[in-house]
């Protein structure tokens, strides 16, 4: 099997060092309140640019894994999830810390993350080549619809409002088209010299994720949010391992739900953790203990959000549809290295793909080892003041953006997009759909133009794009994903209206 063939490369000096350093840095970044995995990966993409493709991807993948696990630290200790994926961990992790069981909660978090993570990566290893093989049947029309599907699912699930998500995705596509038409070579929308090279992925990624976070952190610092921390009790790791592994139901529910949610493009880790938490509570003999410091709550949610990581890379590596916003950023990292998702990745660049997946598997073990070791020092990381974090992120954002092409224009684009995104976020628009539009827009356009030429040479453009089993299936999936999201949003709104009218009746009576 290819995985075993390429496994020695994972343990080669440089890659192993990247794995170890990436795991430690990822855990620390994840533990820092306000630094999300998406932002951490986006900030570090420029530094992988000068690395070999395999090493660069390993660093990004390891950071993704470790930041999601590390995010539980601030969720448990300060009741602020380090990443959206850790929201469910907070529900029982923080009450455990309040009850003097902080170390125990952190132990369960890393052990469960490791178990869930291994299952997610195994799914990645076995499913991706199969799905990529299927993608061999895809021509320009199918690839066009896949790009559209990617935008619709993230657009539908990445924001609180479906319409706002879809609108943000459309604006993201439009932004990606600034510069040159890839086929005709026409210059478009170049209103200033700074836009002559178009809007490239790195300035967009860093600007859209890092700069709004800087604003959020200074706002929190000004209001004096965060800073509360708990003492850490002494607890033997072995006792935690035995207890954790004996919670088979919690681990199974978390890992299975996390994997399924990860495979659905756009669902994101926060949904995986919350669904798994809810299901485990329903199956539990004592559901009333949940929310008051029940260890199974931490175990289920952490195994879910880490099994989601590996699974979310399945559609990304095989079809180019990211399973989560962080996977979308990773897709950007892949494209920057000149690698394209799909069957070619497993034939022409097999060593990169298999070494990357092998490294992800090893990183799960390293994450548990280092996570358990550094959990005792977590209290120091979460005490870093928000205003210092904001200043450091702002400087790193400029440094990272400039270092890729030595271009001031990139820095200006990054800063402008970041500030605009901050204001857009205050109006309910999320950065995920915009980024996905920017990444998938050029792919959609290139395939659209190629399909148009092929269609004109065949039975007509309309028939070329709207006929054939795979095309129709993909169109149906696009419609289904939008339709389902709209229905879900209406349901939530109806429930909210019902609750508010009930409250009004209560007040009146």
């Amino acid at each position: 099997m290819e995985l075993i063939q390429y496994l020695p490369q994972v343990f080669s000096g440089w890659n192993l060092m990247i794995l170890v350093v990436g795991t430690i840095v990822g855990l620390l970044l994840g533990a820092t309140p306000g630094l999300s995995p998406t932002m951490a990966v986006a900030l570090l993409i420029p530094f992988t640019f000068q690395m070999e493709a395999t090493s660069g991807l390993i660093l990004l993948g390891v950071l993704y894994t470790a930041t999601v696990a590390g995010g539980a630290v601030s969720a448990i200790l300060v009741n602020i999830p380090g990443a959206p994926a850790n929201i469910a961990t907070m529900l029982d992790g923080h009450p455990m810390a309040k009850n003097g069981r902080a170390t125990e909660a952190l132990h369960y978090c890393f052990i469960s993350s490791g178990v869930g993570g291994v299952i997610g990566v195994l799914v990645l290893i076995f499913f991706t080549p199969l799905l990529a093989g299927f993608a061999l049947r895809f021509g320009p029309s199918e690839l066009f619809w896949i790009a559209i599907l990617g935008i619709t699912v993230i657009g539908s699930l990445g924001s609180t409002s479906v319409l706002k998500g879809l609108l943000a995705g459309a604006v993201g596509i439009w932004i990606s088209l600034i510069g040159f038409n890839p086929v005709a070579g026409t210059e478009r929308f170049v209103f200033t010299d700074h836009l002559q090279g178009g809007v490239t992925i790195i300035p967009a990624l860093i600007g859209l994720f890092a700069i709004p976070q800087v604003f959020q952190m200074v706002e929190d610092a000004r209001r004096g949010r965060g800073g509360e921390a708990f003492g850490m009790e002494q607890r033997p790791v072995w006792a935690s391992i035995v207890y954790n592994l004996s919670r088979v139901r919690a681990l199974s529910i978390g890992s299975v739900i996390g994997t399924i949610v990860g495979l659905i493009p756009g669902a994101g880790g926060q949904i995986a953790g919350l669904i798994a938490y809810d299901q485990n509570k329903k199956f539990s003999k004592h559901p009333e203990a949940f929310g008051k410091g029940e260890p199974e709550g931490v175990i289920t949610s952490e195994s879910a959000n880490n099994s989601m990581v590996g699974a979310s890379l399945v559609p990304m590596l095989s079809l180019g549809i990211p399973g989560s916003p962080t996977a979308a950023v990773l897709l950007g990292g892949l494209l920057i290295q000149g690698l394209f998702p799909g069957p070619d990745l497993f034939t022409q660049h097999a060593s990169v793909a298999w070494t990357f997946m092998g490294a992800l598997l090893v990183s799960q073990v390293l994450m548990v080892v280092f996570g358990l070791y550094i959990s005792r020092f977590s209290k120091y990381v979460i005490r870093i003041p928000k205003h210092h974090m904001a200043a450091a992120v702002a400087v790193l954002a400029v440094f990272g953006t400039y270092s890729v092409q030595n271009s001031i224009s990139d820095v200006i684009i990054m800063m402008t997009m970041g500030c605009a995104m901050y204001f857009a976020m205050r109006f309910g628009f999320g950065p995920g759909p915009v980024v996905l539009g920017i990444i998938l827009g050029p792919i959609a356009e290139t395939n659209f133009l190629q399909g148009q030429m092929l269609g004109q040479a065949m039975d007509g453009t309309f028939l070329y794009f709207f006929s054939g089993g795979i095309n129709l299936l993909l169109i149906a999936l696009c419609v289904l994903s939008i339709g389902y999201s709209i229905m879900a949003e209406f349901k939530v709104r109806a429930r909210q209206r019902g609750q508010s009218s009930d409250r009004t009746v209560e007040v009146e009576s």
Partner: protein
Amino acid sequence: MMSHRKHRLTAVGALLVAAGLAVISFMPNMPGYEFPQMAAVAAVVFAFILTLLALVPRQPVTAIDEEPIPWGGIWPLLLILFGFLLLMRWLGFFSTSFLAFFLITQIYSPQRITCRGAIRGAAIAALFLGVLYLIFVTLLRVQVPGGILI
């Protein structure tokens, strides 16, 4: 009631932005603009539905997820970021970064500004940038914008 009004304003604002993109995309009568036109039309359609759902019913159907912009808290940061862009090419990346780091930590510190706090802030900024310089400029030879200082 206030949040409903803001929600409606957001929807109308989004429609205006989408319409703006459509106008820019349809103005040049040249080949190569088909796909931007499709993206702009899609944006207009989504913004139009958003506006319709926000304006027509007495109570908006879509989620009200807007938050007020805390202008009082963010304007110094906006100025610092703008100043960063202006000064970077003239002063050099590290000098400008030092100034930006120092100003952000001092302005947004929950404690009152004191001489001791300022010295501490300057030391942290110098340490952070020193490590950045050592790793990326000295060891990895990464290029940074130069100026009259470093």
